[in-house]
């Protein structure tokens, strides 16, 4: 193991700065690990026991700072040491540092008076208090945290409304404000279409489809999943619509959600009626007549919502690639499946993607079991075992207690892909790969071993297994969209171009002709 030690004599950094220094130093290429500690006898003993004690550290005093660098194979240690020292000098010399940690919202605001948004991602028990502080400091709030009580959500949204601020969340995963993506967001073209969404991956899909169709996004305001419930009353949705009405850069508005509570829907329609800007509404499973009666444009799916808005924004319709359904492909896949293979298993990281695909499949095939079904009769009792057509949202709370969301860590889904492949009644496994900021840097890479295993299991059993993947992203996202798609296709995975097409293809593949 290659080790180098730096001793800073009589050097006192406060603990927060030490943590920041450690993070920076650990980020230097070639550094395996940097351990930073004061030169006390006890700390030196630990270095000795872990094989890291060098002469410099042996001579260190309790008031000295020991910086012990372990290098990766193949790196010049003297060079590494120089790089680490440089990074640390830079860190300590900087007056202003983007990675500075503050102990409170108030302290951060004092040092950054130009900031006007707080993104909150702390355990739910503390999120409300922190959000309240942020609002009182005059900040808009995006709350990624969940496990916040309904009462707290209502109180925060009312306070935000009174202060003229946005209170996005709780459980809000996606926003794009003035071109800046927050939390999970895709890199999309800037344009004139504003979105208000009570749905994280739904918002992502709409923004990506807008980009794909040649349009652009002005703002994307998230509301959190419960906003359109009767209790919360759509406070953020309504404030979001108002904000977009007042935003000069927004010419067309899209609303995305699952169907709101009736009273909330009525309030929204009242506002929509008075809107001077065209509004497209995609309430998945919503009632077309009601939406059209408000003067809004009805969109059955997120893809349709994006398409309508892009056309309204002035992009000529004839220039748009609408990714029509490949009917020939549907027939080819149907022919490969045995009569016994009659089920679709949808295994999704995105909740709205799961809902939308399930909704479309259900239209054709009948009942769907799911962990997010609104009908108690079709809530899957045992999350480990599928039943009939089953759609699982791996981002649901039941899977994410104490572990990262599957968009960050897709590993939770891998075992299930392999398990479904063993079921001879499964013809189609539909999955999503969500790109963009905040997401895993290589979701396809993380999932391919399971896909290969699944294909192998089916092949050895003498059957075709259709794996259908929807890659949600743009060519501007950090994960390299084309590479993600190509690697899936190389393993025989069929690619669908949208959430809508995933649903239509799945149901097409699995449908059996009446005999």
């Amino acid at each position, binding site marked *: 193991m290659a080790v180098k030690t730096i001793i800073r004599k009589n050097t006192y950094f406060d603990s*927060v700065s*030490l943590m920041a220094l450690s993070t920076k130093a650990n980020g230097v290429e070639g550094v395996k690990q940097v351990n930073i500690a*004061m030169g006390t006898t006890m*700390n030196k003993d*630990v270095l000795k026991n872990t094989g890291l004690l060098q002469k410099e550290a042996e001579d260190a005093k*309790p008031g000295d700072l020991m910086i012990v660098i372990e290098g990766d194979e193949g790196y010049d240690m003297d060079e590494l040491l120089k790089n680490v020292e440089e990074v640390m000098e830079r860190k300590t010399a900087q007056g202003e540092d983007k990675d500075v940690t503050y102990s409170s919202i108030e302290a951060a605001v004092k040092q950054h008076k130009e900031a006007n948004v707080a993104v909150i991602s702390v355990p739910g028990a503390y999120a409300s208090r922190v959000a309240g502080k942020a609002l009182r400091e005059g900040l808009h709030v995006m709350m990624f945290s969940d496990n916040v009580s309904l009462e707290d959500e209502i109180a925060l949204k009312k306070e935000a409304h009174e202060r003229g601020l946005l209170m996005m969340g709780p459980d809000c995963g996606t926003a794009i404000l003035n071109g800046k993506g927050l939390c999970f967001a895709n890199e999309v073209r800037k344009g004139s279409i504003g979105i208000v969404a009570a749905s994280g991956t739904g918002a992502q899909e709409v923004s990506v489809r807008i980009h794909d169709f040649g349009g652009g996004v002005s703002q994307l305001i998230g509301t959190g999943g419960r906003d359109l419930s009767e209790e919360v009353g759509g406070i953020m949705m309504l404030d979001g619509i108002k904000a977009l009405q007042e935003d000069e850069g927004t010419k067309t508005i899209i609303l995305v959600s699952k169907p709101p509570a009736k009273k909330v829907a009525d309030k929204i329609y009242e506002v929509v009626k008075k809107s001077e800007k065209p509004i497209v509404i995609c309430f998945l499973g919503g009632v077309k007549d009601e939406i059209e009666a408000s003067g809004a444009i009805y969109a059955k799916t997120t893809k349709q919502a994006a398409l309508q808005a892009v056309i309204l924004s002035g992009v000529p319709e004839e220039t748009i690639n609408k990714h029509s359904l490949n009917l020939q492909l549907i027939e080819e896949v149907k022919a490969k499946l045995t009569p016994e293979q009659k089920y679709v298993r949808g295994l999704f990281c995105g909740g709205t993607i799961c809902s939308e695909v399930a909704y479309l499949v259900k239209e054709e095939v009948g009942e769907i079991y799911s962990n997010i079904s609104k009908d108690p009769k079709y809530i899957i009792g045992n999350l480990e075992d599928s039943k009939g057509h089953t759609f699982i949202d791996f981002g649901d709370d039941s899977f994410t207690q104490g572990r990262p969301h599957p968009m960050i860590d897709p590993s939770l889904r891998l075992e299930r892909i392999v398990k479904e492949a063993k079921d001879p009644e499964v013809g189609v496994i539909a999955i999503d790969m969500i790109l963009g900021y905040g997401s895993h840097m290589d979701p396809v890479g993380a999932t391919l071993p399971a896909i290969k295993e699944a294909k192998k299991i089916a092949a050895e059993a003498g059957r075709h297994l259709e794996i259908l993947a929807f890659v949600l992203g743009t060519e501007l996202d950090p994960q390299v969209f084309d590479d993600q798609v190509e690697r899936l296709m190389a393993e025989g995975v069929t690619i669908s171009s949208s959430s809508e097409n995933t649903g239509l293809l799945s149901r097409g593949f699995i449908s059996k002709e009446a005999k």
Partner: protein
Amino acid sequence: MNELMIHDKFLERLQEGNFRGTVHSVFQKAINIMDEEGILYTILKKEMDKGPMALHVLEDDLSCLNINVKDPVTGDEHQLILGKVSISLKEMIPYGFLQREYRPSPFLASNIKKVRLQLEEMKDENPSPYGREVERLLNERLSHLKNAFMRDDEANILEASLKLIGLGPGLTPSGDDMILGILSVLNLKNTPHEKYRYLYEQVIEHAYTQTNILSYFGLKRAYDGWIRQDITDFTIAMIEKENIEKELEKILQIGSSSGQDIAYGILSLLEASDIERKGV
């Protein structure tokens, strides 16, 4: 500079006159001064909680004040001068540290459980081999200390405490912070293990050569009965209050992980006391 309040003992020292020293260290929230007798004093930002031998000022970021390490310091009853910066002591409000009392309530057990769970959730999941070894030793030694208190084993209380000094990351090593937490409980009047408090005189003496000077003074002051307000507030809240969210949040904001380590120390001794109280 705009001033606010001062520890009464610090004010007494300044009123004696002829205060001389140098600036020892400068941080965003605190500036430390070492006088000619080797005693540490601290200037704190207004927002900080009351600290031992400290003077609070209104400035937001003390590291921007043009006060540098090794700047000369002089002071008397009227003012304190650090390099070129002068602090007026007029209209200063003195404060002291009153001894609080241990009065266990029915909430103690549930608070212990709640805080233990929360601290476990905050643990670093992927430390390096070095980090894992440090964590193992800290856990082991704190556990020995807690067991020693439960068994009324004086020799092991001393030994386990000595073995925590200087161990762990941070400006104030984690082991020191845990001892600080222990002292926070031992300082309470009628605390179950009050009779072992005297052992910590040796621990403090040991700390003088085994840890850095800033951490040493933190421990020494704690032994003298002077501990940061937020730490005492949390200790009392654990023992007496039903809802401890506010106090827990404040203590966890201390340093990077110091707050957690102090909380672990407090928790361990309170657990030991609570188990004994129930006769388990």
